[in-house]
Structure formats: C-alpha cells, structure tokens
C-alpha cells in the first residue's frame, strides 16, 4: 500500500525541469522528507515522517488539530528548522538554503497575515517586491491575479473591508505573485462558509490543472477527497496511512456504512444485539456505525432482529471512516 515507487526515480538536485509537460514517466520529485522530526522541548510535534511528492501532484496531509501538519508545512516552507531527519525541496535543504527554497514556493498560511494597512492590490505588489520582481511585471500580474481571485472590483479596497473568504482568496492570489510551481496551503478553507469553500476549491482545482504542485493540510475529509491525488493520514506526528482517497477507503473501510441512532443512552447497550451484522461495528457516543459491503442489506438485517433505531442512514465510506478505523477517534473535534 505504501506507494514509494516515486522515491527511486531520483531527486537529483541540479536537474530542474519545468513542470508544465503532461505527466510522462517518470515525474520529477519536488519534495522528499525522510524521518523528518521536530521537537519543542519534550513535545514531539513531528515524529519521523517519510514521504515524497512528484511534480504536479496534489498531496494532502489529513489529520486532527495538533497532529503535526502545520509544523511539517513550516519545515517544508523553510521557516522552521527541523530537529532531525532529511528534507529537500527542489533538491535544496531549507535549513541551509532558506531563501532559495522559499523563492520556489507560494505559501498560504493557516492564519491570514495580509497587510491590513495597505489596499488589496498593494498587498500583491508589495509581496512581489520581496522576490525582487520589477513593477513592470508586478502591475499587470497583480491585475491578472485579482481577476483570478474574483477580487477585481475590490482592488482599491482596504483589506479590513473584505469578508473571510475574500481575504483567503487574496492570500492565495498573493502566494501566486512569483508564479510558484509548488503551493503550500495550510488549512485553506478552515472557518469559511460552504459557498466560499466551493469557490476556493474551484480556484485550487484550476491551479492543479495548470500543473502546480499543491501541498495542503486539512482536517476536512471532503476537502481531502475533492482536492488530493494522494494523502497521508497523520496523527500525533506519525503517518498512519498513505494512498489516494479511494485507495485508503478501499483498504481501511468497507464500501458502505450504516449509521444508526438509538438515543444516546441506548447506543452502547444495543450494540451487542447488532453483533454479526456487516463486517465491523463502531460504537460512538451519538451513533452506531455498521461497516458493510451492502448497506441496505445490513439495514434489513437490523430490522429483522426487531431493532427500531430513531434514525438510520446508509452512505458511502469516507476518509472520516478511515481515520476512525486507524486512530479510534473522530477527525473533527
């Protein structure tokens, strides 16, 4: 299951090729992490994780808050030094080549850090200057990115006046000012309403189509399913599983899930009577989950035993189920 075929294709430091071509074998590896570890005092935030990302892939880190996702992103982003292990971005070690690594990246941090005292368009211009880009390039580019972020009519607004979703889109536009081939997104849609999330996903999907490598962290399984070609499930600083969303679901869950609610007091006691239905049973405080290949059939069996749940629901397995299986805990707090 651990799809490490990509590692052997060689991450030669010097051979920098544009990533635009259609994906012909073998794809160049743009990020490699080996036994990557970060400790803060006694706390181990990232505990020896190993992965690699080929160019053009959309790679996700899925896990609950505090799993070490953000710390990993900061190490990749060249802003936090690792404690041990190896890390290369475009063949460069971020600890010794910080500015070079960061020049390759676009970064969307978890917390917006836009310059609220500057206007929307000026935020893009100022940021481009940090890459030494000339105004003759930045001015048309800023307009193009505002268009992309659907913020053209807000160009002269103060950042304060933008909604949460708009600020997020501006942050993404800002991260693209240097035309990076690798984009790091740390929980890009946390705190946004569903409509704003969908607009954002659409924009990110377009970037993916343009061949930009996306590295994103999320604790939303639907986001991971929507955007990620491949992901690692992280918990307590360790990798629990790795694969495409479909692969992970196939390997760690059944095709369908029956969700039953008997009322909070009765869920546990009734679980014993469900024994033998489906392949596996998971009792949560608010509901009982039956993992089965055929959900409807499982539901009929429940009824045939004379059990009457308050509500019942048959659905496809999701990454939430994978996470539950791997860690015994729920993803979203």
């Amino acid at each position, binding site marked *: 299951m651990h799809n490490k075929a990509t590692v052997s294709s060689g991450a030669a430091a010097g051979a920098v090729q544009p990533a635009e071509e259609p994906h012909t074998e073998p794809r160049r590896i743009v990020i490699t992490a080996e036994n990557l570890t970060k400790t803060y005092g006694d706390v181990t935030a990232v505990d020896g994780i190993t992965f690699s990302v080929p160019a053009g892939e959309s790679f996700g880190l899925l896990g609950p808050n505090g799993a070490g996702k953000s710390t990993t992103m900061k190490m990749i982003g060249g802003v936090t030094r690792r404690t041990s292990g190896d890390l290369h971005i475009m063949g460069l070690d971020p600890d010794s080549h910080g500015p*070079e690594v*960061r020049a390759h990246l676009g970064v969307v941090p978890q*917390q917006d850090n836009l*310059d609220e005292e500057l206007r929307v368009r000026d935020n893009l211009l100022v940021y481009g200057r940090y890459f*030494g880009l000339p105004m003759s390039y930045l001015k048309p580019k800023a307009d193009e990115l505002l268009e992309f972020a659907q913020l053209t009519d807000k160009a002269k607004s103060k950042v304060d006046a933008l909604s949460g979703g708009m600020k997020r889109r501006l942050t993404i536009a800002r991260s693209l000012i240097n035309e990076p081939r690798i984009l790091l997104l740390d929980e890009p849609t946390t705190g946004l309403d569903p409509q704003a999330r969908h607009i954002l996903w659409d924009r990110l999907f377009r970037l993916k189509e343009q061949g930009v490598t996306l590295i994103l962290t999320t604790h939303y399984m639907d986001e991971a399913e929507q955007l990620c070609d491949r992901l690692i499930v992280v918990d307590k600083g360790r990798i629990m599983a790795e694969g495409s969303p479909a692969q992970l679901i196939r390997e760690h869950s059944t095709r369908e899930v029956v969700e039953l609610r008997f009322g909070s007091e009765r869920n546990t006691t009734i679980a014993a009577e469900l024994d033998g239905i489906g392949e596996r049973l998971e009792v949560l405080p608010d509901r009982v989950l039956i993992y089965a290949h055929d959900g409807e059939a499982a539901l009929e069996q429940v009824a045939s035993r004379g059990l009457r749940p308050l509500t019942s629901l048959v659905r496809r397995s999701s990454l939430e189920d994978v996470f539950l299986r791997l860690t015994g805990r729920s993803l979203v707090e």
Partner: protein
Amino acid sequence: MSEKAGLSPDAGLAGTTDVAPARAHSPEIAAAKARRWGAFYYAEQVLRVMKGYSWSIIMYSVGHPVAYLFAMGVGLATLVDSQGAGAFGGVGYVTFVAPALLVSAAVMTAANEFTFPVMDGFKWRRTYYGPHASPLTPQQIAAGHIMAVTLRFLLQSAVYFAAVALFGAAPDGWGWVTILVATLAGLAFGLPLMAYSASITEDKGQFALVMRFIVMPLFLFSGTFFPLDSLPLAVRWIGWISPIWHGTELGRVFSYGYREPPLLTVLHVVVLAGLAVLGWVLTRKQFAARMGR
C-alpha cells in the same frame, strides 16, 4: 523557466506595462536578489505603510518643533535670558535647548516606531510572517524596518533643524550635523528597545511603562532644559546613561560650538554607536529566534 531571467531589468517604481504577459524571473534569480536587497524590499513595505499615515508624520515633524521652539524661544527664553545668559554657556536659551529638543524628538519617535509596530509584526497583525514566507530572512525584515525608521528620523530631524535655523538657534556652520546626531541617538535608544519589543509575547502595557518610566525621565533629566551639572549627583547618573544626554551634548558641540573636553565628545559618539550596535545585534538574534521556531 529562466529564459526570461535578466531580460527585464529591475524597473523599480517605473510604471511601464508590457504588451505580452511577462513571466516572473526564476526562483534562483528571486533568491539571489532577495539575498542581496532583501532589507531594502522590506524597508519599501514599511515606507508604504508609513505613507498611509504620512499626514500625522508631517504634522508631528513640523508641529512639534514649532510648538516647542515657540514656547521656549518666545515664552521661557525671555524670562531666562533676562537673568543673564551665563548659566547656558553664553548662548541664548533657545540655542541651548534646540539641540536637546531635536534629539529628544527623534528618541520619542523611536519609542513609537520600535514598540507597537514590532508587536504588530509578531503578534497583533502578524505582518512579519507574510514576508517571512518569502525569500527574505528574519534579519532582513528587522533591518528593513530599521532602515525605514532611520529614514523617518533623518527627514523629521531635517525639518526640525530647518525650524531651529529659522529661529536663529543654530549659529554654527556645522549645525546641520545635529540631524545625524539626532538620528544616531534615535537608533541608540530605539534598537535596544526594538530587541525588547521583539521579546514580548504578551502585551501587559509594557510600552506605556517604557514611555512613562524611561522616556519621560530621560527627557527631563538629560540636560535637556538645564545643564546636567545643576542637578544633584544623586540623579545625574540618569544623564550619563541616557542616549538623550549624549546626543544633546554632541548636538550642542555642533550647533553652537559648545566647549567640552574632546575626549568627552568622543565618548558621546562611542556610547551612542555602541548602544545602537548592541541593540542591532540583540534585535537580529531575537528576530531569528522568534521567527525560526
């Protein structure tokens, strides 16, 4: 990826627009440019933000000297000067206080520009963390911030000096050097303060305390309004450790040829430069440590 590299020279602020959409230069070039000019890029950002409150900067730069010089020169000076100018080394009272006011104004600006904006950068609006993800280094971000504020010191002190000259309070031909002296004093006081600001993780009103219990006593007891010698020894030490006193005495040497042992003049420069360098070293350390965590 890099064919376009180097074709378009850094156009800086020129407003030319290309016909075909230009490509960004390669990451290699971006990194090389940032390594070389990064501090200037960040200074540019700080100046842009300052432009947003340029009106209050101008009002402060012009209003402060005019108000103080008028009060001292027209009000207090008529009273003091009528008692005989002997106490102030044979010069009029306005001439005596002008360098002190100029230096104090720079120090007070330092107390503003190196406190709240630093907290803003690290904590409130986290403005340092945007550029931190770009090729800039924490040290360059600190340096850029300092460069922009230094420019403000220079401009503000130049305006102040012009007002002093209009009041006829800088008789010596070397009077303009007080602009540089005030800037140096601003850095001597401001950079150690910046290192302190960068170490604060929680705002518990420390900056208000700095203003009340450090800046104000230094302003009052640094030989600003009367010679330091007229104070009892018990409080004279405040002057000796004060960047305002060292800056003021140095400014007096240039603005009206105030006579003091040459070694003391050298000491003023050494103390001011030493404090500035110490502050810079500590600030760099603090920025790198705090952002690299």
